């Protein structure tokens, strides 16, 4: 088990809904190895995004344990979690969450700046080139299409060369050609740096490229299919 980078042990997530507590994740157990690519699939509302947040330390399990790179995320303070994410995790949100007052390049440079990287600006430019947005570097999010914003968000997640990439429907807004390009990009990162990919997706093409497809239904793992 030395190769396990992320493990979720009997994790539960209970949130306060309008009508009392709602159990969103009902005991998830999952071990993910280094460089593995895992596709999380399942019907809308089944808890995929919630699980992703849990793995990224953006949400705390109500019960159970989440361990990433040997750290028990539940034991870390919020600031320790933030520091831990630097370099360890890249996260692409379903609705991108770019900083609206910053240009594409500034958005991409941000995690590097936060981590104190001296060459943040140059690396951000290069990363934008890689996702094919070199010509959009000076544009603000509001001036870009959904697909372009998504690629910017991906560049922002990848630029720190994280050990783990968590992406929520990273090809959701892209046409086939762009979607394929983004997929290539993520998988190339895995090949080059050994990045572990955890991708929530509805796209069969993307799921098909993953080593492993985990199916979530109603907050539980309904199927865990190793295809490697």
């Amino acid at each position: 088990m030395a190769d396990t980078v992320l493990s979720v042990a009997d994790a539960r997530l209970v949130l306060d809904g309008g009508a009392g507590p709602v159990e969103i994740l009902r005991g998830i157990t999952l071990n993910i190895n280094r460089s593995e690519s895992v596709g999380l699939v399942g019907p809308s509302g089944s808890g995929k995004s919630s699980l992703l947040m849990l793995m990224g330390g953006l949400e705390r399990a109500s019960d159970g344990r989440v361990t990433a790179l040997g750290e028990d995320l539940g034991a870390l303070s919020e600031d320790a979690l933030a520091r831990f994410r630097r370099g360890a995790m890249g996260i692409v949100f379903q609705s991108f969450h770019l900083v609206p007052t910053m240009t594409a390049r500034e958005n991409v440079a941000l995690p590097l700046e936060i981590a104190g990287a001296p060459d943040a600006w140059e690396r951000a430019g290069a990363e934008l080139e890689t996702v094919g947005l070199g010509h959009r570097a000076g544009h603000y999010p509001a001036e870009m299409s959904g697909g372009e914003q998504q690629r910017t968000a991906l560049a922002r997640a990848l630029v720190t060369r994280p050990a783990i990439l968590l992406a929520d429907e990273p090809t959701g807004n892209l046409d086939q050609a762009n979607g394929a390009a983004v997929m290539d990009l993520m998988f190339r990162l895995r090949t080059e740096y050994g990045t572990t990919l955890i991708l929530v997706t509805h796209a069969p093409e993307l799921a098909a490229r993953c080593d492993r497809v985990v199916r979530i239904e109603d907050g539980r793992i309904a199927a865990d299919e190793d295809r490697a």
Partner: protein
Amino acid sequence: MSLALRIALREMRAGLRGGLRGFRVFLLCLMLGVAAIAAVGLVREAIRQGLAEQGATLLGGDAQYGFTYRRATDAERGWIASHAARVSETITMRSMIGVGDAFTLTQIKAVDAAYPLNGRLVLDPPDAVLDEKKGVPGAFVDGVLADRLGLVPGARFTLGGKTFEMRARLLSEPDSTGRDTLFGPRTLVSLSALEGTPMLAPGSLFDSAYRVQLRPGDDLVTLKRQAAAQFHGTGMNWTDSRRPSPGTERFTDQLSAFLVLVGLAGLAVGGSGMSSATSAWISSKAETIATLRALGASAGLVRRVFAVQLGVLTVLGIALGLLLGAGLVMAAAPQIAGALPFPVAVGLSVRPLASAALFGALTVVLFTLWPLGRMTRIGAARLYRPGRAGGWPGWGAVVSSAVVLIVLAGAACAETGRTGLSLAVLGGVAAALVLLALMGRGIGALARRLRPLGRGRPVLHLALAALGGPGGEGRAVMISLGLGLTVLSSIGQIEAGLRSAIRNDLPAVAPAFFLIDILPDDRAALLDRLAALPGVTRTETAPMLRGVIDRINGRPAREVGGDHWVLRGDRGVTFAETPREKLTAGSWWPAGYDGPPQASFAAKEGAELGLKLGDRIGVNILGREIEATITSFRDVDFSTAGIGFVLTLDPAALAGAPHTEIATVYATPAAEAPVLRLIGHDFPNVTAIGVRGALERVGEALASVSKAVLLAASVTLAVGFVVLIGAAAGGEGARAREAAVLRSLGATRATVLASFALRAALAGAVAGIVAVAGGVLAGWAVMDRVMNLPYSIAWGPAFAIVVAGVGAVVLAQIAFALRPLGLRPARVLREAE
């Protein structure tokens, strides 16, 4: 029901379920501004009504014939008596009341047996009389003064060298608006007692007044006309019960004009808050608007839908404001009435409430036209390409704003009756807004240029992005904050100016005493005796007469010079062989000059009146009209409290006119008591006015003004606070999202907080700079131009306000960032998905 109305009502029903959340700021700002203006208006109305209703009592009769420096001649007295049912003569003057070795300034009122024609004196004991007892005349002494001097009924004291017996403590006079005791508390004596003293010698500075009750059938208008004809050129001044105290009225009007304007400025600060609230509301409704547009609604229909909703809110806000304003005034009615020296009935009246409502409505219209104009530009395309609000509102909105602004300015001028001041204040507010908007753009551009500086420094980078990036949230905060701070800093400067005037910052060279009513024959002896006292360093004297400058180049002076203080009432006039001050233009009359009258005028005041060399100035002295040609201007410094006359005539022009001398005595504080004793004992008809004491009394008057100003400022403070909290709360969602994203990217909470604080501080600092500049400008304008008081920048308050303002913004931003920072990022980000 029209379509617009139906859609609007449906929208509002949905909005009400949210408890008017987005509109709390809008309603609060409107409410506070309207309440302030309504409250000021109600109090002023009460004072006006009080003056009107109590007119005859306050004046002491239906009408008053006043003379300065002399009593009416027998012929004049005869005419007055033949045109009245009853006449009462009073004389007022300053004098020294002496108990043993202690001498204090007092304001004497000598009355005849008919006094008071209206109302009654309140005395302790109540049935005391002024009649002579055992050859000693009686006196009623102001209660506070009597207590201070240890005078009890039966005790004796001197007044102008003559012995009087204290008969009662004077608790209140019917004919007083409380403004006439600037030169000391009152001592009431009988006219016949005063006649036996040297105090009424020719040239003494006293005022006589003949109050009359009309004969049945007579009316004031006719009598005033007859009197004007009868007393033409005699220096008689007429007052009647329709305006019993023009001074009080002017003071009230000025103060309330100022307070209304402060209220308006507060409303403008609120207006910027209302504008942002409206913009935010419209942005949140962008989808609804786009949908309506996609379904074929015209821009006009959409605008009407929103205008109806705003209209309902406005009516609600104004109603709440009127309720609050009226409620406060009614609740404080006893205190307000108690604070005024004459009876007023504080109550509700329609006019002030209506004008407060009008100002509220105009402000709303003015500040919502732009967001509404911009809204019309939201097209159906917004549905699939969410963009930013803002930008050009269209010419319609610009033209309408201009029209509303003109109406607002007109209403303000009408309400305050002070066109220049109103336009200056409104212009100042508008200029501050424009300046802030321009600075906002400038800062945006600057932040964009400086962005490379932020590279590698995420805290700075984020702050620069917030200021320079699209959306311009930072700029909106800057405008409302800047306007609020500008108003506060203006008030701060004015208040500090008033306070420094109160603190009697005596110029180093100020005299210790003014001596008045020195008989020319006593002058030499007085100077010798004073010079012999240790501690008296210098004494200056000048002859003094009092006159009214009533004509300039043959025309009524006020037509030429307007309401300048030099033309208001009577002024001291002197004559001299040689100039006391430096000439700035023209030349002095030669020694022994005996030609047509020549005059030398104070340079600054002359320039303000538009006078130039060769102009003819008409001055009425003792009923005699003297016309003199201005042959020189002098640099008169009124700030040192030394001898300074606006108008100096050549000696021959006033030859033979009875006059007295005034003197300034420069002495160490230790010498002040011996000077008072010397004058009290040996020169009983001379009155010594302690400069320190006089400044203290002026200070007390200014202190009440400054208190009112601070009270009005607190409204602006409250409105500013609401706007600030509103802005911080309004940005909470966006900030929470940003914080969550930054944390997902590895930023600690400290980093996030620092970035929020830095951007708030940057926006605040810019707002602060504008505020300091605006405040200094306003302070100078009000102190120097309006109040004729010296002004120097009060750096303390200026920086205090800026630091407090910036601190408040930073704290508000941090306070509203703390909650989202405490949440797990997923909670915030999930809501958006």
